[in-house]
């Protein structure tokens, strides 16, 4: 029976190889898409699960609501972890991390590298996290000053094959000892690093790092279970104002009125997909994509299954005689059902094999787009294997169910008599049309989605940002570079005629801009009893720069003036704010308003607002422009941005490099273009757009394969009709029209059905952007025309062949 089944399946396949190939290839493409998406989702959902106690590790985050403010920070203050360690024995381990702002240069002998991914961590790091140690001992690895832990590849970079343990590395002109080597951080970790530096090194002399009120740390705790976490959170929340520094020795008068604060204990396994707080360590993934991709996978699979059902059912009418004979010979409905189901599974198995080949071919490209390093090892990946089996069983069943039922219910007599089953049985026809409509509706939704995403990305990229990101070369500075050296370098650059201007800044547009403390003495509420020093304090985004920042970035001044060395006082007493800040601070006459900057200064920097900048999009267009202040400061300089006035940017970069080497012979030269780093912000949208475009293309391809097969089948069935029409004098064009009409109506209906869900889906997606396009009616018109043209080409070719046949030949078929 099984042999008989496989035999007949294979013989059918070979006999009708064109149709079979379309069928199996379509299903294979559908399955391949699903496998790719599965791998993507599996990776997205696997973040941080490699830690032994992953589900019991939490990051303590701060959430403050009140006075028009709703801030949820991933980062917390330096005093939090010591407080927890001291007061909550139920916390099994706690550790804080601090990521290096700047790139630091490490050197070993003659080797020196800029290290971008350094993290400072408490000695309890390995009690919370389980990164695998491969050399050295994790106990004591980070206790005490001047200790470092390397990842495997970093160790290799510095020491080659030598044993790294105990080796001495220079950092900040001091000696650090390598105490352990861990495996490279898995790509599915929400934080990445190459080097861990012992936080204890910062505790030399004093414990400032444990008293720090700056939200520059990430605090992690490990508890026994969820209940412990909940009760711990409750207890911790009771003392939140004390931790935040508002309540000192029981005096709670400083707690801001109408403000609520709580700690959020964010499970680390949720950070990757759900972590969208302020100051996340890095841009996390997005649950939306996980959902969107799941939907797409389902869509594509549905289309592929429908193809199979439609083609198999259409073809099966050709097999009516076979079914009739089998029934006359004693087969019952179940026998027939089993046979066609079996064939469906044989086909699905073939499709599965094809899909694995497709995935292997597509995976490198898919990895480039998604920025992942996915691999296909079906046998080693049990969830994938399980899902593949489930999908295989499901697809085989769904694809085979209708043809099987359709055929097993035939009356043998009818079938034998007419040799073919009429494909025009009303239910069959209705169902087939319904399935074609469903298929095309899905494809049309995808087309509309792809068009709108594409339009939105174009809109973002072309939107007037309020500053000029073109032709700006950005150099990375290290924190060993002093302010005078930056000035020297800038002067050097001025000797290059193509350099228009250059500015050293703390961050560049597209980066996260720091939240720092400022104060408006004029806004001190007279009703509240405060000293002159405390009133009007708030935090806002602050860019630290030099006087060339406005020119270099092409920021426009709306009121007042920009920085200028002519005044001589700008470095010490001038502040620029943007329009959003004017509104936020409710300033009627901003220029001249007294302003102070307090962050990390022994004495506040006092001065006044000298000008108002027009809003410029220093952050993503996902959100409205936030208030920002720019002032001149030598601190936190990370970048030197150079505006180039030349088409030949490459050549100018070579000149810039020469100057750099002359000033910093020992610091590696590193640069990038502002435009490309700025566009990184939309990387996930661009990737999403690309992926959706590919999948849309695939979906249309699969749907067209099905349409092609179905059309060729129907043309074959209508050869007699075509013959009669031609004998009666019909022209070729009128025949093609007659043959294509039905399909065009189906596609038109599909369009109408698809419009509403597509509109709703895409409107929701666009709502993620503060600045977004309107969904234009043209998208729908273009899609409708596009889908009909694609369908016409698919069907037309078949209709043309059918219509150009000699009528005698077509009539003979009878």
């Amino acid at each position, binding site marked *: 029976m099984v042999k*008989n089944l496989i*035999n007949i399946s294979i013989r059918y396949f070979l*006999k009708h190889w064109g149709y079979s190939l379309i069928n199996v290839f379509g299903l294979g493409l559908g399955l391949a898409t699903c496998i790719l998406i599965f791998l993507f989702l599996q990776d997205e959902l696997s973040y941080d699960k490699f830690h032994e106690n992953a589900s019991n590790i939490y990051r303590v985050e701060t959430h403050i609501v009140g006075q028009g403010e709703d801030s949820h920070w991933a980062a917390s203050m330096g005093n939090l972890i010591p407080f927890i360690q001291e007061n909550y024995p139920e916390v099994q381990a706690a550790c804080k991390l601090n990521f290096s702002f700047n790139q630091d240069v490490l050197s070993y002998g003659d080797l020196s590298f800029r290290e971008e991914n350094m993290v400072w961590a408490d000695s309890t790091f390995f009690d919370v996290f389980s990164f695998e140690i491969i050399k050295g001992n994790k106990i004591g690895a980070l206790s005490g000053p001047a200790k470092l832990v390397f990842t495997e590849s970093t160790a290799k970079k510095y020491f080659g094959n030598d044993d790294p343990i105990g080796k001495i590395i220079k950092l900040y002109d001091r000696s650090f000892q390598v105490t352990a080597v861990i495996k490279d951080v898995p790509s599915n970790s929400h934080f990445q690093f190459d080097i861990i530096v012992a936080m204890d090194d910062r505790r030399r002399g004093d414990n400032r790092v444990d008293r720090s009120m700056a939200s520059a740390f990430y605090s992690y705790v490990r508890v026994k279970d969820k209940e412990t976490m909940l009760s711990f959170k409750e207890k911790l929340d009771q003392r939140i104002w004390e931790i935040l520094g508002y309540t000192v020795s029981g005096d709670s008068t400083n707690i801001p009125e109408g403000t609520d604060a709580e700690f959020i204990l964010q499970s680390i396994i949720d950070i990757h997909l759900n972590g969208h707080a302020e100051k996340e360590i890095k841009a996390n993934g997005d649950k939306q994509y996980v959902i969107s991709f799941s939907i797409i996978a389902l869509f594509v699979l549905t289309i592929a299954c429908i193809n199979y059902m439609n083609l198999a059912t259409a073809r099966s009418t050709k097999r009516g005689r*076979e079914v009739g004979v*089998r029934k006359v010979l004693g087969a*019952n409905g179940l026998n027939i059902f089993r046979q066609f189901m079996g064939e469906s599974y044989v086909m699905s198995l073939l499709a599965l094999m094809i899909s694995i080949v497709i995935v292997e071919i597509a995976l490198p490209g898919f990895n480039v787009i998604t920025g992942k390093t996915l691999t296909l090892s079906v046998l080693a990946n049990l969830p994938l294997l399980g899902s593949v089996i489930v999908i295989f069983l499901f697809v085989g069943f769904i694809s085979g169910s209708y043809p099987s039922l359709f055929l097993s219910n035939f009356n043998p007599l009818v079938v034998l008599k007419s040799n073919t089953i009429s494909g025009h049985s009303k239910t069959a026809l209705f169902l087939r049309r319904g399935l074609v409509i469903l298929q095309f509706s899905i494809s049309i939704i995808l087309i509309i989605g792809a068009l709108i995403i594409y339009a939105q990305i174009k809109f973002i990229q072309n939107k007037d940002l309020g500053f000029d990101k073109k032709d700006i070369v950005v150099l990375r500075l290290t924190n060993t570079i002093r302010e005078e050296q930056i000035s020297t370098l800038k002067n050097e650059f001025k000797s290059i005629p193509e350099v228009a201007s250059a500015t050293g800044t703390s961050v560049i547009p597209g980066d996260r801009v720091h939240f720092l403390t400022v104060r408006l003495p004029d806004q001190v509420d007279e009703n509240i009893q405060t000293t002159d020093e405390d009133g009007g304090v708030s935090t806002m985004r602050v860019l630290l720069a030099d006087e060339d920042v406005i020119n270099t970035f092409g920021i426009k001044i709306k009121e007042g003036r920009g920085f200028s060395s002519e005044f001589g006082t700008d470095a010490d007493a001038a502040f620029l704010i943007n329009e959003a800040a004017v509104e936020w601070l409710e300033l009627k006459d901003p220029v001249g308003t007294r302003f102070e900057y307090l962050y990390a200064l022994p004495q506040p920097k006092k001065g006044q607002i000298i000008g108002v900048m027009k809003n410029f999009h220093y952050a993503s267009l996902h959100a409205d422009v936030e208030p920002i202040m720019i002032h001149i400061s030598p601190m936190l300089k990370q970048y030197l941005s150079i505006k180039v006035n030349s088409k030949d940017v490459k050549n100018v970069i070579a000149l810039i490099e020469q100057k750099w080497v002359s000033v910093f012979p020992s610091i590696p030269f590193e640069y990038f273009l502002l435009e490309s780093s700025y566009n990184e912000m939309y990387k996930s949208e661009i990737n999403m757009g690309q992926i959706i475009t590919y999948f849309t293309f695939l979906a249309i391809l699969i749907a067209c394969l099905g349409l092609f097969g179905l059309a060729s089948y129907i043309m074959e069935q209508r050869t007699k009709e075509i013959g009669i029409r031609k004998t009666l004098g019909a022209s070729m064009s009128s025949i093609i029209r007659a043959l294509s009409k039905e399909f065009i109506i189906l596609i038109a209906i599909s369009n109408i059905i698809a419009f509403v869900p597509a509109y709703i889906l895409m409107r929701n997606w666009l709502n993620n952007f503060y600045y977004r396009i309107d969904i234009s009616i043209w998208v729908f018109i273009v899609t409708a025309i596009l889908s009909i043209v694609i369908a016409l080409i698919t069907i037309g070719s078949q209709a043309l062949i059918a219509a150009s046949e000699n009528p005698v030949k077509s009539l003979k078929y009878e």
Partner: protein
Amino acid sequence: MLKTTNLSKVFRTDEVETTALNNVSFEIKKGEFVAIMGPSGCGKSTLLNILGLLDNPTGGEYFFLDNEVAKHSEKQRAKLRKNNIGFVFQNFNLIDELNVFENVELPLIYLGYSASERKKRVDEVLEQMQIIHRKKHFPLQLSGGQQQRVAVARAVVAKPSLILADEPTGNLDSAHGEEVMNLLEGLNQSGTTIIMVTHSQRDSEYAQRVIRLFDGQIINENIKSAAAV
């Protein structure tokens, strides 16, 4: 073997009512070889389908092996059919994708025979039909006569007590036709009841009895009649 009383069959579409069989009564005994003759559209095939349990009559009684089967469901009929009746068609109705052996094997598969039993029986019957040398061939690689021999082999492989043949020589030249008729005659001589619908006077001479139908009614029923229509 079987007996009909006032058997009738009426086909109805929305507007038209066609009477294909009108009060047909006859009996066929075990071991008989009966030919049913008549012009096109006289109801021969309808009668054969009802006798072969492929269809139900709209009126009258039909006793098959002493069971009244006129009102049987398709499921019940199928069960009786596969155990007792073999079919031979004018256009052979072999499955193109199966080879000779597999075609002949089919009825045994549906009867649930084991693979070894099937092989034995199929080889036996192919030997008997002198087509064993072609058992790996596909129908389209065979001549019409060979195809019909395969079809006969398939009809008898399950050892049915009744064979229904619908114009078995209709698609064959006279030499091949004779071959097939000789096969049927041989089967009849070894005890199988045969009912054959035919247009051919020559073929009808193999039968012991001819039933003549005209417009759905029996007009003549005689043993070894020489009378032409």
